[in-house]
């Protein structure tokens, strides 16, 4: 008899425990659930934070942003943003007349092996003009923003760092995918006649060798450091101050009826990114010929393979005037202009034409 009573009491206690409000983290759906609470039905979702809050497990911090909803006897909190691996979160329920309930949830952080590397840097040539304007650094995976300049340096032959050679902008210059970083040299040290250049001089000196160094500490978008340091060593040639001149380009025209490549060769290396977007081939009918572009070694050739076979007739390569060399000299417009009035003449003319025939 006594045994029966004891078992009954135990069952009742278990039921009570099972029926008591409790906090559960649903890792599959990223939800914090205050369950087994009859009072849930009386709570308006917008007042859910009066009873149930979730915050980062740290003192004096505001609660997480998110939405509440009621389901059966549960008050559910859905955080607005995914939870951060490696962090702990504290969920607290304060039900009137009951002891507060608290649960701490730790989100596991998987082991992260570094795999991201610098794939390539443009310009690809190893001789750069003294007034080199920028580098494009391409990564194999998306990178984290906000730390770029801490991880890039320019060192001279002796291994000494060059003092502030680059333009450091809070709005780091990335592409949409976060895989290409644009690194400008400080224009104050390139443009002639500025106080910056007087104080620090130019960053690169003709005849010397330098290395652009990207250290391993730079983290990718997943928080992993780079798999390896990257180093591009180059020699410095004379400053390049002449505008880009279409007349110095050579065109190797393909034969009609083939899909052979059209190749344009430049006398000096060109800006890789701008070259990719500024040239179009216009066919005899006046419409743009579709196709793929490859940029050749040292950015000295533009190779165009059409989607369809070439037709006989007169073609035009339409060239945007933003097409630039390594020092930012553009078509008919040097980076620095000696006579201001010359700029006006061509301000609104944004393309030039290069004719060729397909026979």
């Amino acid at each position: 008899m006594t045994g029966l009573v004891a078992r009954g009491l135990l069952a009742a206690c278990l039921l009570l425990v099972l029926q008591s409000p409790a906090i559960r983290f649903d890792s599959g759906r990223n939800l914090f659930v205050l369950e087994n609470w009859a009072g849930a039905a009386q709570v308006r979702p917008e007042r859910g934070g009066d009873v149930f809050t979730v915050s980062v497990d740290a003192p004096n911090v505001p609660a997480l942003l998110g939405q509440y909803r009621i389901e059966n006897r549960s008050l559910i909190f859905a955080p607005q943003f995914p939870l951060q691996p490696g962090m702990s979160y504290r969920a607290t329920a304060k039900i009137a007349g009951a002891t507060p309930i608290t649960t701490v949830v730790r989100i596991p952080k998987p082991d992260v092996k570094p795999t991201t590397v610098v794939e390539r840097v443009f310009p690809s040539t190893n001789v750069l003009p003294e007034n080199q304007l920028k580098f494009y650094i391409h990564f194999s995976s998306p990178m984290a923003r906000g730390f770029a300049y801490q991880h890039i340096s320019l060192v001279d032959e002796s291994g000494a760092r060059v003092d502030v050679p680059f333009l450091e902008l809070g709005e780091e210059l990335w592409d949409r995918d976060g895989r290409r970083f644009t690194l400008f040299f400080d224009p104050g040290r390139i443009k002639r006649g500025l106080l910056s250049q007087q104080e620090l001089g130019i960053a690169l000196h003709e005849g010397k060798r330098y290395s652009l160094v990207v250290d391993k500490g730079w983290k990718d978008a997943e928080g992993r450091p780079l798999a390896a340091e990257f180093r591009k060593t180059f020699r410095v040639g004379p400053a390049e101050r002449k505008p880009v001149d279409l007349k110095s380009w050579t065109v190797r025209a393909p034969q009609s009826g083939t899909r052979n490549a059209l190749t344009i060769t430049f006398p000096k290396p060109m800006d890789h990114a701008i070259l990719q977007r500024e040239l179009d081939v216009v066919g005899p009918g006046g419409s743009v010929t579709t196709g793929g572009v490859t940029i050749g070694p040292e950015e000295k050739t533009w190779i165009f393979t059409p989607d369809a076979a070439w037709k006989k007739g007169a073609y035009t390569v339409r060239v945007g005037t933003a097409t630039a060399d390594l020092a930012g000299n553009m078509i008919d417009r040097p980076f620095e202009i000696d006579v201001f009035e010359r700029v006006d003449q061509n301000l609104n003319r944004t393309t030039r034409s290069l004719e060729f025939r397909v026979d």
Partner: protein
Amino acid sequence: MTAFRITICAALTLLLLTSAGVAVQRTDSLKAGKAELQSAGALTFGPDGVLFVGDSMGGKIFALDTEDRTASQATAVEVTGMSEKIAAMLGTAADQIQVNDVAVNPVSKKAYLSVSRGLGPTAAAVIVRIDSTGKIEALPLDNIKHASVVLPNPVNASTGGRGGNARLQAITDLAFVDNRVFVAGLSNEEFSSTLRAIPFPFNQADKGTNVEIWHGSHNRFETNSPIRTFLPYRVNNEQTILASYTCTPLVKIPVASLQSGSKVMGTTIAEFGAGNTPLDMISYAKGGQNFILMSNTNRGVMKFSADGLEKFNPITAQVPDKAGVPYETIASLTNVVQLDKFDAQRAVVVTRTGTNLDLKTVALP
């Protein structure tokens, strides 16, 4: 006398109605819904609690109705450990967020911050505001009255659908002047300026003027130079933009000269030397004099007189340090990464110590 009073009353009523009408019209152009910000960078306030947000990733300017139009007599706002608190609200750690800009609502005195939650290209754009009690809340971007305008990607010659996708304009600064939003940007490909003036309310048919800004150094060399930060300011009763290039000189540009398709040369009025990039500028009056305060990456916070800027001759010859407008560096203001005006006597600054950011009001020097 009675007739005079009636006239005055009628005039005042008309003025009131007109201002109310303008207010209604401005926020009427904003439609409720989700503001699809791909990123949140440069901020500036327009009239009636409208917050302009530069979205560099999306290539747009957003106008958000903050519905924050209640005047406040607040004299301070302070949050120690701000980055940790904002990060906690967003469910992450302080080193996983970036605070991109700060703008104070001149009416409510609440500080608005544009924040990236996450560090990669898919980071979420968040706008938070902080009141005088230090309370931090997020603007509900899922349902907010807003409008946006697309910034045209300029001079992309290739129409063959090739290239151009990697090209973005980083919006470096915004200002609202004479019913236009001025936008300064820097391309991630070419070294050139784009200063745009976009009428507000936004009108898709009128994307505004687009002006090439040039920098002439010492009457000899000119380059098409990007503007890093700028401040609308009246010089000798002429609406002017005081702009700082990425290569540090301070120039003045008359707003009247900003006509579409034109080439505009800024007049250099100061050079601040090497290894430094200006961050923010504000103007204020103190003791009957006008001043400008400028924060920098490497040269602290500089103060210089804004009186008689029109009298400064353009710099046309190489000169030693502190060329042009004389300035002083404010020793008490260090590690300032964001600066905006709070009221006539105070500024809001965000300071950085390691990975931590604090926000506070400081007396204007």
